[in-house]
């Protein structure tokens, strides 16, 4: 799966919260463990977005959910 269509989170709770918020805006996503090669801190979860990732990121940001690197 492409990393350009994924958003990284530091915890599964944040990832699931983001998934819930996106679902409320009709954006589907799949939660997976962040591939290690792309992880700087060792562990985390990513959401692969089935849709407009820019819009998804904006929705997540405006919901106050932190992504990895925030």
């Amino acid at each position: 799966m492409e990393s350009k269509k994924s958003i990284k989170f530091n915890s599964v709770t944040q990832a699931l919260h983001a998934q819930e918020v996106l679902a409320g805006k009709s954006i589907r996503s799949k939660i997976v463990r962040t591939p290690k090669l792309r992880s700087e801190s060792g562990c985390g979860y990513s959401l692969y977005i089935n849709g407009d990732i820019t819009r998804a990121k904006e929705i997540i940001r405006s919901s106050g959910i932190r992504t990895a690197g925030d």
Partner: protein
Amino acid sequence: MIYLDNSATTFPKPPSVRKAMIDAVTQYGANPGRSGHSMSIRASEEIFKCRSRAAKFFGANSPENVVFTLNCTHAINIVLKGLLHKGDHVVVSDIEHNAVVRPLYALSECGISYTVVRVSINDSDETLASFRSALRDNTKLVVCNHVSNVWGIRLPIERITAMCHQYGIEVLVDASQSAGVLPINMTDIGIDYLCLPGHKGLYSPMGVGMLITAEGEKLGTLIEGGTGSNSAVLEQPTIMPDRFESGTQNLPAISGLRAGIEFVDAITPEKIHAHEIKLLSNLYDRLQENKRVKLYTPRPNNKISGGVLSFNIKDTDSETVADYLNTRYGIAVRAGLHCAPLAHQHFGTETQGAVRVSPSYFTTVREITTLSQAINSYK
């Protein structure tokens, strides 16, 4: 058995709670928040569902503000030991449980002081004045029990919180006896730290409680360990709820908690409270006719009472009465000091203790009638 010890833990649990626990063990019993396989993700989703449900039910700003703990005592300890430093002062009510008083007593050995204030049974102005008079320049936290686990006295937490915030002081509310029985919206009331158990008014299993707070990132930690996040970094995560959830979570209990919250939400705390108050005022009226029975609080009502009523029979030791009820009538109540010696000092029952009756949504009028007859039969 006629079970009237629901302040200790509710029994029975609703069928939906039992089912949720069984499903967790039989259908998706993987470790949540650790692996990437389907069952682990499913387990993580179940945990999140409960977190999200709890956040909505208690008016928290975000599911991330909900931390699952072992029980309410654990939640209270996280706040007291994570927030307070040498030189800080705390104000507590004189009806607090040992879950509050014992850690504060331990912390007093480290230079943290606390003041116990006397509350009024039915005058919230007087209670508020007591709290206000105890505040000092170095008061960092006020802790108050929403409902006394011994007497059912209900404290005006909305007014106490508003008053404390005027002075920049945070408030911890122990909702052990009120969660699920009285409506609590943290955001509306302004509660900084809400601590509660799953296994009482939320009809969930033992082994899970919650600390709900938006202030978690500033608290020091009691336990550090694996969180399934940022594993390459040795520092405990600051993000919530991971900061306080090291180690494997109690998935079956949390699944049960989700079902318990849904059960209570469907009925509503208001209806549950009204049911319990009706039962206890019925009991109160019957006991008042018996000159040998000592009652310490006013007739229960919606405004000043939670779902708890305690009494004594003359000077008879309370454990003796409780044993009589259990042995002769199969009625379960709790006697003694209820892990709340301060609350007993309030009414002078430190030696005798008291017999506590605590119904649940499942308690019937017939059971209360049987109880009153049993009490009145004691010679």
